[in-house]
């Protein structure tokens, strides 16, 4: 073939793929961009491991952890990796008994502070390319230190964290076994935690079994719900792929969290949450003063790209494991899956960022509410079916006990003298 023919052939194959792809019909409406390829929903493969932090066995819950995952299990639960060694280990806001998140609207945060956002589960995070509500971390390895070191989460200084690991002989041995460290290196603790999180993947939900051919794995109601999910409710527009998220950013018009303004009663606002929002806006360098003084809600993706057209947009939340992760949305505004379904059924709500904005320089920005949000007119039966389908995206709650943690020991007792 000549090169031009070759090119033609490739283009034809592409065109055929686009036309005959099974999802082609799903975004016929409301999505004018034909290159926007939606991944079909489907069973999860085993979690992917990056080459620079691989494990030999790639074990997944509930099989036995390998040494690296076990090290991550320990460090995940260890308050030594928080500023005051108090109640701010990873596991304190990603609690195994609360769906590896917390069941409060706002995650609790470091003592003396409060978090402003809802704590997300760690289950199945292995498959995500964007972590945090604003999608600020590209990998689990990058996410762990961001959380552990932020002043309103773990408030850990690297120097104190690494020094603590070094004086716990069990860690010295384990880090040596797993990473070959002469002395534990803190960066490797984050990598171990990432491996542990990859272990915490759930790939045997009723939905996964159903997709692999076991037609009895999901109830009839859930199967009907799946059709509604892809069809009438159009959830699939954004919640697609095996993780049920396109990892893109949308403003649904979720109302401001009650921690910020108290909802009905301003007295119910949480002062520490107000402090946290201001800190977040102030601490995000490069903002102008008028933004600091006028943004009264979590601007989501705007924190990442500083484009006013991004204000109030959040990364599409994955839908797996949601049986255990209520409340939902970035400030935990919605208490149950049914409330979430009702929210979408009425076409979402309005918030500060769905309104147009005029900057002090006279620039005008439209409201950012996603045009995909439309009234769905679901019947009660359809809502129930949809709920049943969502519940089929979770299996068991994956509870792990707090491990016995390595303790600091006087060096003279365990370091052989040269």
């Amino acid at each position, binding site marked *: 073939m000549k090169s031009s023919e070759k090119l033609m052939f490739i283009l034809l194959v592409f065109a055929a793929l686009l036309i005959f792809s099974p999802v082609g019909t799903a975004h016929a409406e409301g999505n004018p961009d034909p290159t926007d390829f939606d991944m079909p929903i489907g069973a999860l493969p085993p979690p992917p491991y990056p080459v620079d932090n691989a494990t030999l066995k790639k074990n997944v819950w509930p099989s036995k952890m390998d040494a690296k995952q076990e090290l991550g299990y320990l460090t995940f639960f260890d308050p030594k990796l928080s500023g*005051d060694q108090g109640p701010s280990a990873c596991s304190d806001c990603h609690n195994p008994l609360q769906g590896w998140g917390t069941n409060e609207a706002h995650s609790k945060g470091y*003592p003396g502070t409060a978090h402003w956002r809802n704590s997300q589960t760690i289950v199945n995070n292995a498959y995500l390319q964007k972590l945090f509500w604003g999608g600020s971390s590209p990998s689990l390895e990058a996410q762990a230190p961001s959380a552990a070191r932020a*002043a309103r989460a773990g408030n850990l200084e690297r120097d104190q964290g690494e020094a603590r690991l070094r004086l716990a002989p069990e860690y010295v041995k384990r880090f040596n076994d797993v990473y070959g460290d002469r002395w534990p290196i803190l960066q490797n603790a984050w990598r171990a935690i990432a491996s542990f999180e990859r272990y915490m993947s759930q790939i045997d939900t009723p939905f996964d079994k159903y997709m692999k051919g076991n037609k009895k794995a999901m109830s009839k109601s859930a199967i009907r719900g799946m059709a509604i999910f892809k069809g009438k409710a159009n959830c699939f527009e954004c919640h697609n792929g095996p993780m049920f998220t396109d990892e893109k950013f949308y403003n649904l018009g979720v109302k401001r969290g009650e921690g910020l303004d108290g909802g009905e009663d301003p007295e119910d606002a949480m*002062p520490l949450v107000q402090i946290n929002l201001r800190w977040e806006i102030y601490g995000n360098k490069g903002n102008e003063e008028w933004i600091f003084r006028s943004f009264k809600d979590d601007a989501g993706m705007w924190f990442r790209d500083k484009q006013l057209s991004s204000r109030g947009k959040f990364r599409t939340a994955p839908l797996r494991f949601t049986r255990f992760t209520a409340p939902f949305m970035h400030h935990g505004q919605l208490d149950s899956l049914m409330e979430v379904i009702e929210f979408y059924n009425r076409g979402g709500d309005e918030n500060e960022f769905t309104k147009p904005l005029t900057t002090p320089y006279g620039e005008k920005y439209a409201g950012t509410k996603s045009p995909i949000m439309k009234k769905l007119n679901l019947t009660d039966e359809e809502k129930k079916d949809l709920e049943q389908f969502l519940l089929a995206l979770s299996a068991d709650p994956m509870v792990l006990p707090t491990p016995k943690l390595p303790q600091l020991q006087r060096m003279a007792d365990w370091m052989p003298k040269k």
Partner: protein
Amino acid sequence: MKAKTKKVVYKSFLSIVAVFVAAFMLTQTVQAANIGPLPKIKINAKKAELGRKLFFDTKLSGDALLACSSCHDHKLGFTTRKPLSDGYVSMLHFRNAPTLINTAYKGGKTVLKNKRIPWHWDGRLGTNLNDMTRDALVTSETMNMDMRIMQERLRQFPSYVIEFNSAFGAKEPSNGLVRKAIPEFLKTLTSKNVPFDKGKLDSKAKAGLNLFKGKAGCIRCHNGPMFTDGKPHNTGVPENPEVFKDPVRHVTLISLLGFSQGLENIMNIRRDPGYMTVSHDAKDMGKFSTPTLRELKYTAPYMHNGMMDSLDKVIDFYNKGGGPDRPGLKDVAMVPLRLTNSEKAELKSFLLALSGDDIGAAVKYEKPDLDYQPLPNWVNNDYTIKNYKK
């Protein structure tokens, strides 16, 4: 012939220069050695008052449990009166908390124009009180505060917004102003009614002063109005065994000196390296900044690790020429002094004559307000003084 004259001229020029240099150095040493009263510092009362409130406020530490006053207790001479300070929650420090009385005279030739007196026992910070305040606030071994959270905490309290406005004319509290207010308060913590400054030494103390300048040779390092040369010396103070016995303190040492200050070979260090952390020069192992001798009455135990709990022990220590250390490390001036018992007593009474009134007793404690309230009118609140002015 000509070359010879040139040489002579050159030589005489050199000797004249040498004489001038020597004379200059002599005046410098004399000036530096001048012990005497401290100069007065101008204070802005309003800012100092705000600084006092902040000094006692636990909102200025990471988990809101510690204030400056936690390790610099006004009732305990602005120290902890423990050999080793506690440091940040769960950290435990490996050095003694020095007093804050007269700390305003330290720094890089700020108040004492011809003298640089650094802060910290290893002398790693010697610029100004503003920097020192920041250092104490943000360091993970002390208060572990993200100052941006600190300023938002303060903005949550209308009382602070109003006070920062009246002290600084600012529209709201900020971390920069905290680092101006606290130093202003520290400037008020200066020696008062010191017998030595007032020339009211009794005969015993006068004899002690002569020993101080003469036989005991203390003045060699303890000179100037602050009784310190601001330089590091190794006197052979014994190590405090607690530091390496308690792994939590050892963690703090590794964390601060190894990771934060970048000292090499930290995992094999079994003694406090002192000034070596600053210079990264092995010959500075075990050197510590000369401390001030003012207000010793209120600040026992002494030395960088609190190993001596009385002045008698300190005098005995110097009398026998300090402690042992490897040759080349210990200061050569540390030789046995051969003081008699009565001379020791005289020296002690002179040292005590360097302490004045109990400064801390006059400082009013301010209970920190931790009762956070939601801001009124969240949606239209711009957090500034505008919201509270009638």
